[in-house]
């Protein structure tokens, strides 16, 4: 369903914004702001602040995450940064360091 896929050998240094789902298998540095869902796959490496509706992380993320709906950290992911979302799901095997704030007033 995702229309935008950032492949595994792509490196983006800048801002990404959009109104559709985004799948990241490569490297993104900067800022991500998507109105729908963001999927960071196992090979994905994100050093950016994320602002989106849903996030599913299976790769590495360094940066603050702001979601209006849900944040899901899957097994073997590594997240360093603060998470602000009304719903959070951290799977067994995920690695996370940061603050969690589930009182999102947006």
């Amino acid at each position: 369903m995702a229309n935008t896929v950032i492949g595994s050998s792509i490196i983006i240094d800048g801002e990404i914004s959009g109104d559709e789902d985004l799948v990241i298998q490569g490297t993104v540095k900067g800022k991500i702001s998507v109105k729908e869902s963001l999927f960071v796959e196992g090979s994905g490496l994100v050093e950016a602040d994320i602002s989106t509706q849903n996030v599913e992380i299976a790769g590495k993320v360094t940066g603050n995450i702001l979601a209006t709906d849900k944040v899901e950290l899957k097994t073997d992911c590594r997240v360093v940064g603060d998470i602000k979302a009304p719903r959070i799901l951290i799977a067994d095997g995920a690695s996370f360091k940061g603050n969690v704030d589930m009182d999102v007033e947006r």
Partner: protein
Amino acid sequence: MAIQAKEIEQVDNTIVGESILINGKLEGDEDLTVRGRVEGAITLTKTLIVEPSGVVKANAAVRNAIISGVVVGNISASESVHLTREGRMVGDINSPRVIIVEGAAFRGRIDMGEVEEPRIQERTARPQSVAPARPAMVPVRPAPPPARPPAPPPRPPVVVRPAAPPKPVEVKPPAPPPPPPKPAAAEERAPMPTALAKRKVVVKRKK
């Protein structure tokens, strides 16, 4: 949604969807298809494909580029640049192969690297018809008879060829009848021209 993400496993092609805006530097070792907006700089070792809904305001250094959308910026391709019918581009193209299809819009410079000037040496497949009446193009020739309409008529194609590299010299003055027979004999014409028009000889030497 988790399942959907997994399905998109090994994609060898990066797609920037229609409503996505990427602002910054993009580098990669795979194909990139742009259906949205990319601004900044793009560096790829493969192909950049800009679809009709895509807008790229960036300088791109890629291997191949196929443009069906809007590109504002310079493209440096190591292999080819293909501007299709819906392609609109403003900027310079730097590529050894450039294909611009009818209907495309382009404004800018094209640099294909080393371009050899067309030489008129080969008389074999060069029928007179090739050169439209171009009387005074001769300036290229160091030789004097630049604007000598009478001279060329007798034997524009033949003599001129060896003498003057650039095609324009191939002048085909408005005298159609004389040329036709000439070409036939042109093949072995070495001596003939000299006899007929001294000027030609001079020209030849100049070469």
